[in-house]
């Protein structure tokens, strides 16, 4: 029992050190030797937990995406109308990306590995399923146009948000992420929201974006 806890602590320390290094100098430039040095442990200890740099990357992807998906599900599992939850959930995930280093690093690694890593493919699949379930509910609620296909809408939202995240992290190291999320919603909403719900969601987005602006984050 004690041993298990200690082993888990070691594993944590390795992951944290690796994430720090990935963020500082990038994944390709980080060697296992650097991680061992940063984590202040022996080569044996590292290899006991991870047999390669890629298996370490996989662990970061899995853990990071678990944090993000969990945060999103906490929002969408409520009884609030589905489209409100999708929009709010995306903002919450964007917030988390700027504070949770593992989530941030995992997202970058996922992009780097893409189809070559099973964990990355699985994560994208989980996001798509989650998003499509939500868009389906939003169509039932009457907020998303009923002539649209839930999966098409889900894929479009996910694709454009991943793109926004990519541009934000490539151009400003993530600093303008929330701004980009707002822009993306501004363009997407008129295309997918039903006529009756349009004005409500314009206002909903304005409020959401105001609450997540850097000035109000102190709250």
């Amino acid at each position, binding site marked *: 029992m004690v041993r298990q806890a200690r082993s888990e602590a070691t594993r944590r320390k390795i992951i944290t050190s690796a994430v720090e290094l990935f963020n500082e100098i990038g994944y390709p430039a980080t060697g296992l030797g650097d991680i061992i040095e940063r984590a202040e442990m022996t080569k044996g200890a590292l290899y006991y937990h991870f047999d390669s740099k890629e298996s370490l990357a996989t662990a970061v992807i899995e853990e990071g995406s678990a944090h993000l998906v969990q945060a999103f599900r906490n929002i969408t599992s409520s*009884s609030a109308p589905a489209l409100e939850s999708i929009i709010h959930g995306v903002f919450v995930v964007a917030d988390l990306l700027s504070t949770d280093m593992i989530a941030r690093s995992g997202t970058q690694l996922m992009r780097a590995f893409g189809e070559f890593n099973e964990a990355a493919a699985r994560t994208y699949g989980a996001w798509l399923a989650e998003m499509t379930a939500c868009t389906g509910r939003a169509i039932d609620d009457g907020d998303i146009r009923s002539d649209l296909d839930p999966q098409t809408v889900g894929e479009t939202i996910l694709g454009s948000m991943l793109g926004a995240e990519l541009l934000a992290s490539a151009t400003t190291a993530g600093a303008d992420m929330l701004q980009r999320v707002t822009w993306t919603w501004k363009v997407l909403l008129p295309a997918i929201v039903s006529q009756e719900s349009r004005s409500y969601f314009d206002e909903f987005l304005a409020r959401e974006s105001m609450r997540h602006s850097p000035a109000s984050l102190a*709250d």
Partner: protein
Amino acid sequence: MTQQLDRRADTTRLQILRAASRQFARKSYSSVSLDDILADAEVTKGAMYFHFRSKHALASAIIDYRFAVARTSVDELLARKLSGLETLIDISYLIAIEDIGDEFARAGLNLLESVGRTDGLQANVLGQWVTGFAAIAGKGVRDGDIMKDRAPESIASLMVSMYLGLRQTSNLADPERFLHDLEKMWTLVLPGFVNPDRIDYLNQFIKRRTAVAIKNAIPL
């Protein structure tokens, strides 16, 4: 071994509480007899007196239990990080839905109104609610939804009074009517403390919450 016994005692205790809630949710405090509860819970008189010395002790325990559960639901709502006023509105709908369809919730508030009035429990529980809601209303002020010169405590008290009053004037057995009445009350009070440019959106918000609540409410 003691752990196992503890667990069995907990199960029995909960079984009694559940049976009692079923009674208190449907009948007034004075017309519920301990024999009805015993028969429903299928426990012996001895087991009952081991856990609860009197009908009053049972009533207090239901109130405590219910408010611990409600606190958890409110914490979950807070974790959603909506705006302050939206959170307060959501809380009122959450409480309404549980009051409509959950025996513990209904019994808890029924008892708080009857027994709780004389033994100080009401003041204590409602006082805690008002303090908690006032903090959320304070956030509503900072969000720019609630007017700056309105005291968050007054808004919190108004909300509690409004809901408890609604229980008397409306009908919990008719969810659609009850929820529409809740909507009307909110629409009526908002201009008293909400900034004028936020009213339209919040009215829409309330209307949408009512629609969802009507869809989800299942009466006892």
